[in-house]
């Protein structure tokens, strides 16, 4: 199978994630965009493992690691969002500007 199929899919997911990250203002949507980018990274890792045929299965193992870290990130990220919502009654990231000025 040609390697360009999964790699292009990963590139598409990543750039869609970049667009969402930059353009949306709902904090949970920003987290979702980050998840899309992480998913793109795992697809790439597994694809590169499949190309290289590594005996230590590096790509797959790192894909699992990325997944675990992504889950941890979502846990902490959502906790922060809940805190902001509790204090500001808003999940708009433009509103969380207390540290900005």
């Amino acid at each position, binding site marked *: *199978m040609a390697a360009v199929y*999964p790699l292009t899919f990963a590139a598409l997911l*990543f750039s*869609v994630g*970049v667009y969402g990250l930059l353009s*949306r203002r709902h904090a949970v949507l920003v987290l979702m965009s980050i*998840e899309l980018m992480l998913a793109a990274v795992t697809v790439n890792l597994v694809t590169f493992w499949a190309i290289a045929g590594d005996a230590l299965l590096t790509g797959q193992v790192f894909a699992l690691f990325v*997944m675990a870290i992504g889950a941890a990130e979502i846990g902490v990220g*959502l906790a922060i969002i809940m805190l902001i919502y509790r204090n500001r009654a808003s*999940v708009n990231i433009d509103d969380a500007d207390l540290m900005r000025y």
Partner: protein
Amino acid sequence: MSVPEIVMLATGVVGGAAALLVVTSRNVVHSALYLVVTLLAVAGVFLVLGAEFVAWAQVLVYVGAVVVLLLFGLMLTRAPIGPTGQANELGRALPLAVALAVFVGLVALIATSFGGETIELEHVTPAALGEVLYVAWALPFMTLGFLLTLALIGAVVIARREEGEGPLPEPDPDEPEAAEASPPDSSSWPQRQPEPAPDEREVSA
């Protein structure tokens, strides 16, 4: 075209379309549901590539836990039925330009470096992955365990209410607006809700 290529192409098209809908849908809950489709498509790609365990882990961790947590967060922050707020202060043209540049750059890179590369599909059993994971990768794996424990503690510390903070902020007699703008209770949930006016958002500034 071989069968794996057709399956890969189909999952890729479905997953990519769902990903586009995630970032363009006007309803945040719909976005989360499209994200489920994308993540399932990613699991499908893993299956085609022969990484069976990673695929099921993707379903267990992402679809079963992460998206459910995201939906949970959306509903706790009152996601209304119907469209909600859209673009942020960056607007839409700049992010689109950046994303397109990233995509074109990546595709050019892939085409030049991996254009002629082919993949020998092989199936890796969970047993083989486990043997590698707990022997060669044992130390990174344990470090990951520590990281997850830290994240768990961190999330609990951040989200936890302090003693005496109470379920809702106490109305402050000096600042009458503050009480009004405190997070509303669930009485009007999940009906269509107008966005709170911008000045009401400044609660504890």
